[in-house]
């Protein structure tokens, strides 16, 4: 995508009346940011539990596929909440984010994390940990944690690079 296309999109968002109320109301942004953080807690909390089991560090009384069956829907719910509220933070105030380094890093990492989550991780957690060599489990779990916590940390960094 060319820069002009991004800039035109950003301008359209900023001047669109549909989202201005979020920017202009006193508690609009804090309320949506709170929803964003609640979604993150659910998304990362369930992701942690899955990875702790994958790495063999805990939840050993349950098999990984069982844990996956129980937690995957909540993980997706957390993800949906986080992404939808994230879009609602971005749309009313795109100029603040579009050219922010950490934000661009966050979006790039998010794309990779989503691809990893649905193309690789989803299949990994549906098979027993014993079916793979230990180093494979460690590599798969470490990749998942690095990607998602990478998204989260670069998100936190947006505020510190204004």
């Amino acid at each position, binding site marked *: 995508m060319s820069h002009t296309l991004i800039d035109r999109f950003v301008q359209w968002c900023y001047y669109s009346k549909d989202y201005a109320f979020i920017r202009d109301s006193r508690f609009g942004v804090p309320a949506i940011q709170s929803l964003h953080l609640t979604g993150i807690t659910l998304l*990362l909390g369930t992701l942690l539990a899955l990875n702790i089991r994958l790495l063999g560090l805990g939840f050993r009384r349950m098999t990984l596929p069982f844990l996956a069956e129980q937690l995957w829907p909540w993980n997706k719910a957390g993800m949906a909440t986080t992404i939808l509220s994230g879009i609602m933070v971005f749309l009313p105030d795109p100029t603040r984010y579009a050219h922010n380094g950490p934000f661009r890093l966050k979006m790039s990492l998010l794309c990779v994390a989503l691809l990893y989550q649905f193309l690789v991780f989803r299949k990994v957690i549906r098979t027993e940990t014993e079916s793979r060599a230990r180093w494979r489990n460690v590599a798969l779990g470490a990749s998942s944690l690095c990607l998602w916590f990478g998204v989260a*940390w670069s998100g936190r960094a947006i505020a510190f690079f204004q």
Partner: protein
Amino acid sequence: MSLLNVLNWLQHTWWAVGIKQSDFVFPLIEGSHILSLSFSVGMVMILDMRLLRLSFRSQTVSSMMEQLMPWTVTGFGVMFLTGMLLFAAQAVKVYGNTFFRIKMILMVLAGLNALYYQLRYYPKMAEWEQARTPAGVRAIAVLSLVFWIGVIACGRTMAYEL
């Protein structure tokens, strides 16, 4: 010496000044504080799902608690420590913040809620964990979610008034 004097002394200790003035340490502590939510409240959410019988129905509550607790305690440990450091760095301003005060009240309520569960329902768990969850336990699980999401929202919102 009044409370305000103590807070003033606290934020002028060499280490509190160091945290506040550092471009690197403050964001690091703040990011750790926020992201350890996935360990603390994230794991509490999983326990509440079990208590509400939304997930892990085939697992006993006591087994779930034993497996979740080490991570929950670690998460709250990190949150408490980093939270104290963040408070010290801006003690006077934070103390006067309305949302900080609501957050503290909600945390006390969440603590009392958990304490009541431990005293009233935990000792008799063998009687109820296989069958229907008592209405009291379900109410505690709902309150736990309400209080902790309230803590997240107030913690996020207080940043807008600092």
